[in-house]
């Protein structure tokens, strides 16, 4: 279909809608000037319109939330290349398609890898990083599938992964631009304008993490309030990978001191530090992943690079 043909269909469609329903037929008869194909096309669209009142009126996210409520979608994103290009799936869901695949991205625009998919607290959206050139960009996809959308409206610099706020409304992450690192937060609606929480921070490599109570964000060597107005230094306690206790009152952390990997906790209210143990030189964290605390709060998981010596 040519562009001018489509524009004519669109024009007549909207003009016909301004007519009383009983006068539309006559209006189209006259407006289409004997072009029967044009008249059929517009009439067919108007007929669909009358049947499609509720069609896609509920956002995909709500549909997914209903599916989750019915237990159809499980809560874990799963990254796989079993079908060739990388794909993100929801583990144990009954979906017959991935949430998003490398095929959703134009060839050459980004590399074909997904980095660190993280599911929203109510499991309706997934945020992940893809690399274009030398810079990362954050993307968001509805868990029910569909087209990926850039998380932010930024066009310059790079973005690095972070974590969701407990209510799912925000995402905190590092932005790398003009040779410096800024701690940012952005609404999770897609293509939103990010807000700088703190400019020119120490990158520190580890991912910023939002407390379960929503009061604090831990990153690098300090805690910062979600409005960016209050900071609390972690001092010598900082610099590591973190996990909040389920009630948000304790921050667990791991930092390297020479050949030691120290596990410690910080009481958020008092700032008191308690060293929990030394995990030894062979168990340094391998990536920017934070510690992942077990639901019972008694153990945690993190990744370690296995050396040839270990093998």
């Amino acid at each position, binding site marked *: 279909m040519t562009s001018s043909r*489509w524009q004519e269909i669109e024009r007549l469609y909207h003009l016909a809608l301004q007519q009383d329903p009983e006068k539309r037929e006559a209006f189209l008869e006259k407006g289409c000037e004997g072009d029967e194909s044009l008249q059929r096309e517009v009439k067919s669209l108007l007929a*669909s319109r009358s049947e499609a009142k509720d069609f896609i009126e509920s*956002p995909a996210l709500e549909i997914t939330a209903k599916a989750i409520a019915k237990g159809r979608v499980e809560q874990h994103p799963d990254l796989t290349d079993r079908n060739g290009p990388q794909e993100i799936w929801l583990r144990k869901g009954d979906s*017959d398609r991935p949430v998003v695949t490398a095929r959703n991205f134009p060839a050459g625009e980004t590399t074909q890898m997904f980095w660190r998919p993280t599911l929203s607290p109510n499991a309706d959206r997934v945020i992940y990083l893809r690399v274009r050139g030398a810079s990362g960009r954050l993307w968001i996809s509805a868990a029910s*599938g*569909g087209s990926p959308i850039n998380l932010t409206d930024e066009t310059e610099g790079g973005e690095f992964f972070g974590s969701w706020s407990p209510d799912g409304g925000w995402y905190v992450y590092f932005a790398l631009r003009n040779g410096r690192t800024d701690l940012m937060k952005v609404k999770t609606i897609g293509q939103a304008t990010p807000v700088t929480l703190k400019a020119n921070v120490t990158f520190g490599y580890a991912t910023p993490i939002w407390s379960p109570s929503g009061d604090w964000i831990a990153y690098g060597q300090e805690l910062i309030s979600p409005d960016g107005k209050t900071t609390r230094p972690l001092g010598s306690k900082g610099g590591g990978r973190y996990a909040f206790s389920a009630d948000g009152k304790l921050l667990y952390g791991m930092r390297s001191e020479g050949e030691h990997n120290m596990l410690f906790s910080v009481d958020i209210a008092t700032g008191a530090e308690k060293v929990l143990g030394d995990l030894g030189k062979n168990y340094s964290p391998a990536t920017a992943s934070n510690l992942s605390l077990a639901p019972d709060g008694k153990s945690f998981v993190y990744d370690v690079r296995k050396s040839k010596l270990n093998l």
Partner: protein
Amino acid sequence: VSLDEASLFASRPDANLVELDDALTALAAVDPRKARVVELRFFGGLSLEETGEVLKISADTVWRDWDLAKSWLYRQMKRPARKPR
């Protein structure tokens, strides 16, 4: 999957979203902006005004795009699927 089922994605949301995604790809070939409006409104959950801000068009224009895109997609999904060659 019939369109009756598809209308509210009540029984098999994933399967119907596949059809919608296919229809959206076809719409993008005809009118990329309308496809983008649907992406932002349906998949992104944006309001008319928010969609207008992203696309730098008025909320009225978003509404007109949305109205026609819905009719077009609904009709597209109702058509029998072409068998692969």
